[in-house]
């Protein structure tokens, strides 16, 4: 166990910043008012915080905090769970696309120290990487298509 009070405080601070960014962004982009969305956002922050704490407590598991956050929310929102109604009612006020914009704004800035490294790569790497992206995506999509069809789901 490696729980650390300072680090937990830092996590909370960062999560609150991100929460505020999402609330402002979704007010502008999707017309969700800040006050009704606040309880849902607090729940989202709490689950995110728990996910980080679990990840730090079990470093051997190699399961990312992102996946823990999904898993906790998944369990709480399953139809036969008593928490489902309450949980979904509030988290529905947090817009899905609204959560993505701050992530990618941070992500865009964060690659700033990789531009010089990127310039050193050969154009061949660029082409090969595109082929890797396409191969992975359509490889999975084609198998999924076949199996879903065999199962009669689509």
């Amino acid at each position, binding site marked *: 166990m490696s729980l650390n009070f300072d680090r937990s405080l830092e996590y909370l601070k960062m999560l609150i910043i*991100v929460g505020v960014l999402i609330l402002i962004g979704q007010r502008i982009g999707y017309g969700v008012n800040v006050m009704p969305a606040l309880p849902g956002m607090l729940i989202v922050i709490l689950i995110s915080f728990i996910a980080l704490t679990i990840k730090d407590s079990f470093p051997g598991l190699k399961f990312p905090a992102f996946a823990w956050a999904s898993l906790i929310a998944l369990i709480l929102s399953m139809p036969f769970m008593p928490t489902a109604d309450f949980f979904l009612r509030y988290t529905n006020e947090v817009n899905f696309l609204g959560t993505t*914009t701050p992530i990618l704004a941070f992500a865009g800035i964060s690659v700033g120290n990789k531009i010089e490294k990127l310039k050193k790569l050969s154009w061949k790497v660029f082409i090969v990487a595109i082929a890797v992206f396409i*191969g*992975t995506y359509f490889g999975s999509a084609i198998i999924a298509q076949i199996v879903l069809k065999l199962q009669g789901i689509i």
Partner: protein
Amino acid sequence: MKKSSEKQEEKMGKSNFNSFIKLCLTVLFIVVITEMFGTKTFRLGPGRVVLLPMLFAVVIGMLITPDLLGSKIESLKKIISMEEVKMAGSYVMIALLPLGVKYGTLVGPNIVEVVKAGPAFLLQELGNLGTVFIALPLALFLGMEREAVGATASISREPTLGVIGEKYGISSPEGTGVLGTYLMGTVFGTIFFGLLGGYSAATGLHPLALAMASGMGSGSMMAAASGALAEAVPEMKDGILAYAATSNMLTGVTGLYSVIFLGLPLVNFLYDKLYPFFSKKNRGDK
């Protein structure tokens, strides 16, 4: 002595705080203008291109960094310096968590359908090996050698980086290859999949199959691909997002083992078969 170190610490704390404020205000600014601009979609040939606010956000974020626009505009460098760039990295991981929660809330209510599709979820993980069949021959054709093994064994997210680094060393040719694809994915992955996700609906593959494919082990790439796909096929939005999130979670579990036991052996096997053919051809060219 003690005093000066204290002073230094105070100074460090202060510059840290300044960076924090500058970074957060910059991101707020990006969020506000991209959300005001909103989602843009347009037809292109048989498909629809979906440009979500997140796509504009990543492009703007990248452009304002010191080595791009910052190198031209001095005052921009004062706001976003390498210090803020470094800090932004740790915020990405945190900012992903609310999205993770949202994805969970999309899977939960649909859990019965998702479990029913279990076999498809498991088998499509093998589809990630598709990269080996398409990208490896191309890499060899372009004259790459052992770099090709690292570059095409998988989509080169963090687990693959670890596996190849451990097996061959990160400064080996294989290491150079995997770092190349990793870097490309980190910088251009979300942009590429943001465009491909919406457009791929035109291929005739079922949106749910495409949704499964968008879970590749990267939260932001999955968000870009499935978000755009959901905008392109809005009537299936919930199913698309639930399938994508489940597939991504599954890749988080299986990804590492799939590289060790399937991806690397396969890419090495094919390399041995194909390399003689391509090296002869490349020599012939010269």
